[in-house]
C-alpha cells in the first residue's frame, strides 16, 4: 500500500517494471525482520560485554540479563589499574605511527609522480614488494634486531619507528597523485613554485580524502595492534591498552573478575568504532588496495 501512495520517482519506470518493484516491496517487512536479526547477531557480543561491565562475577554467573550494580566498582578498579595511562599511551603511539605514515607516504608518492630520476620503477618495485611480507613473517628477526642489536626494548621508539614506512600509503598516494592532471604542476612551476610549495598549497588540499582514508585505516590498525607491543614492551607504564586489557582484573577475587575486563574491552573499542563508523565512506575509497602496513 505504501508503495502506491509514495511520490513517484523522477525517472518513472515503464509499467511492467513498476509492477515488479511493487511485488518486491510487499515482501519488505520480512527483510526488516531479517536485518534486525543480523544487527542483533552482530551487536550481541559487545552488547553483552557492556552488560557484564556493570555486573560483578556473581551477577554474571547468574545469567542476569539486566545491568547489575557494580559499574562504579568496576570503573574504580579499571582506573586503579591505570586504564587512563594505557589509553593515553595507545593514543600517543597510534597518533605518532599514523602521522609518520601519512607524512612519509605523501613525500614518497610525490617523489614517484612529480620527479624524474633514474631507477624510479625499481624504487617503486622495492617499496611495493614489501606489501608481500606480512609483519608476522619477520617478527622474530625484527624482535632480535630491535631488542638486541638496536637496544630499543621497552621504548616507544620500538613501537613507532619500525611501523612508519608504509607501502600501502605510498601506493595510495602515488595512485592519487597520478590521477591529478599534470597541468596543475606545470602551472605551479610556471608561477615559480618549488616542489614543497606545490605540495603544501596545491597537492594537499586536493588530497583530503586520500589522507582521511589512510588515517582511518592506519589509526585503527595501530590502535588495535597487539603482538608487537606484547613482545617488545614489558614496562607497564609504557604499555598499550590491547596488551594491558588482561591486567585490568581486580586482583582480589580468585580467578578472573570479568566486569572490569569487559569494561576495559568496551572502552578500548569505542575510539576505533567511532572513527570507522564516521569515516566509512573514505575508508571504502582507501581500501582499493590493502594489507594494513
Amino acid at each position, binding site marked *: 500500500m505504501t508503495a502506491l501512495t509514495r511520490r513517484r520517482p523522477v525517472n518513472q519506470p515503464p509499467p511492467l517494471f513498476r509492477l*515488479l518493484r511493487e511485488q518486491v516491496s510487499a515482501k*519488505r517487512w520480512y*527483510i*526488516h525482520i531479517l*536485518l534486525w536479526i543480523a544487527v542483533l547477531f*552482530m551487536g550481541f*557480543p*559487545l552488547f553483552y*560485554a557492556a552488560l557484564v561491565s556493570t555486573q560483578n562475577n556473581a551477577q554474571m*554467573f547468574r*545469567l542476569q540479563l539486566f545491568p547489575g550494580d557494580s559499574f562504579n566498582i568496576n570503573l574504580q578498579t579499571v582506573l586503579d589499574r591505570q586504564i587512563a595511562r594505557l589509553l593515553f599511551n595507545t593514543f600517543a603511539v597510534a597518533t605518532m605511527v599514523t602521522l609518520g605514515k601519512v607524512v*612519509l607516504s605523501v*613525500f*614518497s608518492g*610525490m*617523489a614517484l609522480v*612529480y*620527479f*624524474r*630520476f633514474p*631507477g624510479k*620503477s625499481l624504487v617503486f618495485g622495492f*617499496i611495493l614488494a614489501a606489501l*608481500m*611480507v*606480512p609483519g*608476522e*613473517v*619477520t*617478527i*622474530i*628477526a*625484527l624482535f*632480535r*634486531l630491535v631488542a*638486541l642489536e638496536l637496544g630499543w626494548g621497552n621504548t616507544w621508539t620500538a613501537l613507532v619507528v*619500525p*611501523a*612508519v*614506512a608504509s*607501502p600501502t600509503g605510498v601506493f595510495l598516494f602515488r595512485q592519487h597523485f597520478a590521477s591529478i592532471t*599534470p597541468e596543475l604542476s606545470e602551472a605551479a*612551476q610556471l608561477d615559480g613554485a*618549488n*616542489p614543497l610549495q*606545490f605540495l603544501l598549497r596545491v597537492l594537499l588540499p586536493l588530497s583530503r580524502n586520500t589522507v582521511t582514508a589512510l588515517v582511518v585505516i592506519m589509526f585503527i590498525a595501530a*590502535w*588495535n595492534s*597487539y*603482538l608487537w607491543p606484547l613482545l617488545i614492551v614489558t614496562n607497564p607504564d609504557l604499555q598499550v591498552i590491547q596488551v594491558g*586489557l*588482561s591486567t585490568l582484573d581486580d586482583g582480589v577475587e580468585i580467578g578472573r573478575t570479568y566486569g572490569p*575486563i569487559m569494561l576495559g*574491552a568496551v572502552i*578500548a573499542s569505542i575510539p576505533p*568504532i567511532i572513527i570507522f*563508523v564516521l569515516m*566509512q565512506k573514505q*575508508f*571504502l575509497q582507501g581500501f582499493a588496495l590493502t594489507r594494513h602496513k
Partner: protein
Amino acid sequence: MPAVLFTCLASGLGALVVGALLRRSGSGLLGGMALGAIAGLLGSLAAMIPLKYCVLDPENHMFFELSILGQTITVNAVALIGFLLVMVVAWAFALAIDRLRHHWLARSATIWKADTAPGTFVGYDFSPWIFLAPTVVGLAVFTYYPAAQNFFLGTQLARRGVANTAFNCLDNFASLITSRLQDAHYYILSDGFIWHAENARYLAVFGNSVFFSVFIVLVANVLGIAIAVLASQKIRGATIYRTLMIWPYAVSGVVVGVVFAVLLGGGGSGFLNQSLRFLGFEPIPFLSDPWWARVSVVAAAAWNKLGFNVLIYIAALQAVPRELMEAASIDGANAWKRFLNVTIPMISPYIFFVVFLNLNYSFFDLYAVIDNLTEGGPVNATTNLVVDVIRIGVESRDIGKAAAQSIVLFIVVIGLTYMQFRVMGRRVTYGAD
C-alpha cells in the same frame, strides 16, 4: 668431491626437467635443457654454498618414519629438505633467466631511463631521493633486513637474548617434520592417512591454520554476502542498518578474544552454556574440547571480519546495474536464479578481493584472537602457524627454529600472492570492469 658430484647431478636433473617442460609447451628441447642445466647449476651453488654443503655430511642427518598406505619407510629429513631447497632455488633461477631472456632489452631501456611524464619538476635532481629516503631506509631496515635475517637464523642454533649463534645446517627445518607429537588426539591430520601420527606435530599446526582459513573465509563470506544482499535492498533506513552491522571490523582481536571467552567459556560457565542449561540442554565444552575450540576460534574471527565483508559487498552490490536484474526478471528468472546468474558473476571481482584479504587475515593475523580466547589450547589444538612461531621463538627461546618456521610462513605468503595474481589476472566477470 661429493660437492662437485652434487652440483653436476643438480644440473643434469634441471636439464631433464626444464627440457621436458619446455618441450611440452612447444619450445626447443636443446634450449630448454641448456636453461635447465644453467638453472640447476646456479641453483645448487646458490643454495649449497651458504650451507657449506653440510647436507652431504652424514653427521647432520635426521630421520623420520613416513607411512604411506600402510608401508613404513625411513626418510632422511635433512636430505629431503636440502633437495627441495635446491629445486626451489633452481626453479626461481629458471624463471628469472627465462624472464630476462625475453624482456632484457625492452626492460633495460625503461628501468634506467627516467620516464618522460608531463608535469614533473625539472632541475631537482636530489630532492626525490630525500623524499624517498625515510621510506626506503625504513623498509630496508625493518622489513627486508629481518626477512633476510630469517634465512640466516634459520640455519643457526640461536637462543633468544643471546647474541652468539652457531651453524647447525638444516636441523631447524628438519625438526619441523621429525619432532614428535605429545598427544596425537589434539591435532588435525594426525590419523596417519598421510603422515605417521607421531611425526606430525608441525603438519598438525599447519592443518590448524588451513582449517581456520577455510572455515573463516567460508563463514565470513557466505554470511557477508547474505547480509549485504538484505541490507542493499531499497528499504527505509538502509544506511542505519549498514552502520549497525559494519562496526565489528574496528574491534581489535584482543577484545574479540576476551569477549568471546566470556560468551563461550568464562570460567567454565559462559553465557552460551548457561543459556543452554537454562533451556534444558547439556552444556557444550566450547573451549576445552579440541574441535569445539577450533569452531570457537572460527566463530570469533568470522564475527570480527563480517562487518568489513558486509561493507565491501554492499558497495559491490550497489554497482550492479539495475537494468541487468530487470532484464533477467523479464526473462523469467526468479530471485534465486537472478542472484546466482547475475549478482554473483557481477560481484565476483569483489569476492576474490575479499576472499584473499580474509585468507591473509586468517593465516597471519589471528594471534590476538587465539591468544585471548584459547591460548592455543587445549594442548595445541588451536595453535596455528603464527602462534607456534611465537611459542617457539619467544616462549621456548629457540630463535633458529622460529626463523625456520617464519620461512615456511613466507613461502605460504608467496603462494597466496601468486594465486591472487593468477586469479585476479583473469577476467572474472562479463561486461563489467
